[in-house]
């Protein structure tokens, strides 16, 4: 992997504080994630769960990756953070601040410049007090707690003693302890009331407005649209379209047939499901992954994967995009 500078000369020294000119913080190109597993006897096979995934996140913006549950979008977050299980194999390119995110570099940045916000309090060790668990640096923990109006005494609590609202703030606070440039949030709102989920999203919006790049992984496209700048639509382990959030105002402004189908499935837009289901990992079709369900497919869609093209300021992987 060579260190390639993307876009205008961007160095790690460029401050991410304050809005300023957006810089590209994260760039994922042609990412593939496959798991090796034991088959019968001692044989092994590989199960591809993410393929040909492209994504960029700039400073000061929230990019939401939206897809249905169990479609492997959490694995994208884990791949960026380098916390995939040992039997996972990745290929493709992940750049952070213009430089390849090698395992050695990731080791230094994880927990400081790159932070992870997990789903729930289940991601905290039940036997360890919250404050000490987040960071051994007590001053930093208390400063982060103050930012989210958490009492210093919360640091002495065990995870099960946190209320829902406290847990949400503790998890976000854990991310800002290290002064991050990139925050990866994996489904930060499941099971929350609308009110609580809005508060959680507001935290991410504030962080983005302060110049942090936020990669938000969610199945709740409706909620994400209210806060994200751009939305990447995830299907069967790949991003089929990355569009400005505003484009979801009207079906015609979307480019990919699956994004349009998703749009129709939103309650306010008719609540219409699309027949068929996403292909399972290990049984992916040849060529375009959406072809088997696509109303617009041509005869060549089943033969080669579609290239990613830019149309009206959004990226789409479809030969018949409009």
């Amino acid at each position, binding site marked *: 992997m060579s260190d390639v500078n993307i876009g205008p000369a961007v160095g790690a020294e460029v401050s991410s504080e304050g809005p300023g000119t957006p810089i590209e913080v994260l760039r994922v190109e042609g990412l593939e994630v496959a798991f090796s597993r034991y088959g019968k006897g001692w044989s092994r096979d590989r199960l591809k769960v993410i393929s040909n995934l492209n994504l960029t996140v700039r400073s000061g913006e929230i990019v939401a990756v939206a897809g249905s549950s169990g479609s492997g979008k959490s694995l994208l977050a884990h791949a960026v953070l380098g916390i995939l299980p040992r039997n996972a194999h990745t290929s493709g390119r992940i750049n952070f601040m213009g430089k390849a995110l090698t395992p050695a570099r990731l080791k230094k940045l994880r927990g*400081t410049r790159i932070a992870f916000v997990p789903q729930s309090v289940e991601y905290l*060790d039940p036997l360890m007090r919250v404050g000490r668990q987040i*960071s051994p640096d007590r001053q930093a923990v208390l400063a982060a707690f103050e930012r989210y109006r958490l009492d210093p005494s919360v640091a002495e609590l065990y995870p*099960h003693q946190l209320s829902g609202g406290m847990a949400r703030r503790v998890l976000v606070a854990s991310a800002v302890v290290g002064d991050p440039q990139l925050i990866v949030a994996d489904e930060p709102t499941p099971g929350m009331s609308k009110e609580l989920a809005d508060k959680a999203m507001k935290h991410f919006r504030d962080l983005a407005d302060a110049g942090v790049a936020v990669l938000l992984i969610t199945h709740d496209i409706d909620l994400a649209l209210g806060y994200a700048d751009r939305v990447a639509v995830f299907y069967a382990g790949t991003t089929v379209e990355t569009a400005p959030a505003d484009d979801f105002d009207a079906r015609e402004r979307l480019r990919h047939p699956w994004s349009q189908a998703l749009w129709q499935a939103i309650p306010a837009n008719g609540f219409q499901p699309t027949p068929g289901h996403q292909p399972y990992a290990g049984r992916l079709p040849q060529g375009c992954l959406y072809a088997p369900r696509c109303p617009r497919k041509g005869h060549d869609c089943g033969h080669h994967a579609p290239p990613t093209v830019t149309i009206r300021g959004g990226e789409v992987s479809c030969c018949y995009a409009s």
Partner: protein
Amino acid sequence: MGSKLKVIKQSGAYLVRGVTLLIAISILSFVLMSLSPIDPMRAYVQANPGASAENIAKMEEFWGLNDPMPTRFVKWGSALLRGDFGTSKLYRRPVLEIIGTRFAATLALMLTAWTMSGVLGFSIGCAMGLTQGSFIDRVLKRLCLIMCSIPTFWIGLVFLMLFSVWLGWFPFGMAVPAGVAAGDVTIWQRLHHLVLPAATLSFLSFANVALHTREKLTEVMSSEYVLFARARGKSRFQILRQHGFRNILMPAVTMQFSSFSELFGGSVLAENIFGYPGLGAAASAAGLQSDIPLLLGITLFSALFVFAGNAIANGLYVVIDPRVREGVA
């Protein structure tokens, strides 16, 4: 706030449970002993040939063997409450005194085996859990599964053949060398005699402890909080230290305490194989020769011992896990 009161309440409940357990055990074992096909009189006559029929009848009267079972139980039970466990027919000494001296020997044996299996099992389990799925893990796991399936008496005989008969490293049974006055026996001689029986006894459970620890550590290492710890930049070693030990040490320790019953059962076998004069050997001798007072005494004592182990195990959970402490989980 009310936690102190809760502790007192729980301890009280435990005490009641312990007492009722002992009462139930004493009734059950007394009835079983009375129904046992081994006639204590005949066992006595066999051991002391030459007794006349008249003497036998006198002895039966003296031991109260002609009384109905409930009367005998009440006699025995009321003596028990006064602290009189009776006299062993086999050793002709008070039961309590025998239990006292025998238990000291057994305790040394069990404690050694218990520590050995705990430390060895825990370390092997950690090694397997950390390298889960690797070659080392798979070899160790298979070995442990084999160990689990080996009966104690068999491994005892193998040890005896290998280490004392062929290699001559360790003495052939007993707790002290033969022909040495009790006062002259050194601690090293005692330890030397202890090694093989203790190793045999620890073989009973160390593979179990290892497999259990492996399972627990695997569970912890694939947990969500370890994933998050990795995302926060913690190294493998830091994770083992901060989250691994914290979450697996207690289950391992509590399991150790609740394994007292297996330990006691195993000691009967190990002591018989090695001729080690402990409580286990006394129990089987008392059973075979129908030494009712001694057997009942040992039964009650071992029940108390196992109960204490389980009580400690439960108590530790309360002390360590904040969720159990507050009655959440």
